[in-house]
């Protein structure tokens, strides 16, 4: 992990590649908060970046744990926080099982097709619907991220072999604009 002052202003702020344990997520989260401390846009956008970061990394962590993805580099992921064109971008990449691609893609498409009110409605429905233990699903988290972002969720699936694909997700949070 590193805080990249070299990239002064534009570019990569934090890049971490490795296993996403809870304590690593926490530690990097603290770095995110510290880095954004001086952010002039106000607490709102800082919280949004932090929230998007937490939702993304916890989603990845939960997926890997629940799916019991193991070994061979498959259970480590990457998160990058960068700034570009007056937005902060939180992106993550991890290996997923091919059979999970369809549902995830459909879910992302559905989310991207909603406007602000639609997202709020979707959020409330999912909030009511999710059962307690098993469905620590990406569902609510993705919608939450979409609500904090002013643009669509950018994603890609790169087929790796018969069983796995590499999934990347990019969420942009505007710097300092009030909703």
């Amino acid at each position, binding site marked *: 992990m590193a805080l990249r002052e070299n990239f002064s202003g534009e570019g990569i702020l934090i890049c971490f590649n490795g296993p996403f344990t809870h304590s690593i997520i926490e530690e990097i989260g603290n770095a995110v908060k510290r880095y954004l401390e001086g952010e002039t846009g106000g*607490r709102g956008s800082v*919280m949004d970046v*932090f*929230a998007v970061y*937490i*939702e993304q990394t*916890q989603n990845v962590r939960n997926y890997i744990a629940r799916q019991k993805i193991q070994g061979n580099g498959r259970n480590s992921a990457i998160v990058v926080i960068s700034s570009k064109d007056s937005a902060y971008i939180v992106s993550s990449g991890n290996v997923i099982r091919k059979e999970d691609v369809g549902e995830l893609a459909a879910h992302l498409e559905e989310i991207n097709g909603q406007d602000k009110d639609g997202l709020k409605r979707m959020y409330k429905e999912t909030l009511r619907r*999710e059962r307690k233990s098993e469905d620590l699903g990406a569902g609510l988290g993705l919608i*939450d991220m979409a609500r904090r972002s002013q643009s669509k969720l950018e994603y890609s699936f790169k087929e790796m072999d018969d069983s796995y694909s590499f999934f990347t997700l990019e969420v942009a949070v505007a710097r300092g604009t009030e909703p």
Partner: protein
Amino acid sequence: MKIIEATSSSPRIEYGEAGLSIKGESYPENSFVFYAPVFEWLAAELKSAPRFRLILDVSYMNSSSTKCVLDILDLLSEAAMRGCDARVTWLYEAENERSLDLAEEFKEDIDIPFEIIPVEAGPR
């Protein structure tokens, strides 16, 4: 009065006589596991409590914590229907609009008295 100390990713919980307070940030490794003892206690307490006060002072909660808090609010609503005088107080830092947004969204779906109060930044 029972206390669950805060950690860097979970809030401070205090529960006792007719009241529960949740204070800090909430993004624990597993929210359902974290809030389980709170539910248990709450369910037992609400069976007979004539009044109940929930105080929330949470500057950030992840999506699964939000679900847990909603479930807690539902328990309070049900108790209110059985005659319990249940109320919610939500405190938020004045500059943190997200916390205000979250409070208002909860309030929309809950029909027990729900007051939202801004506080100045700094130790409380």
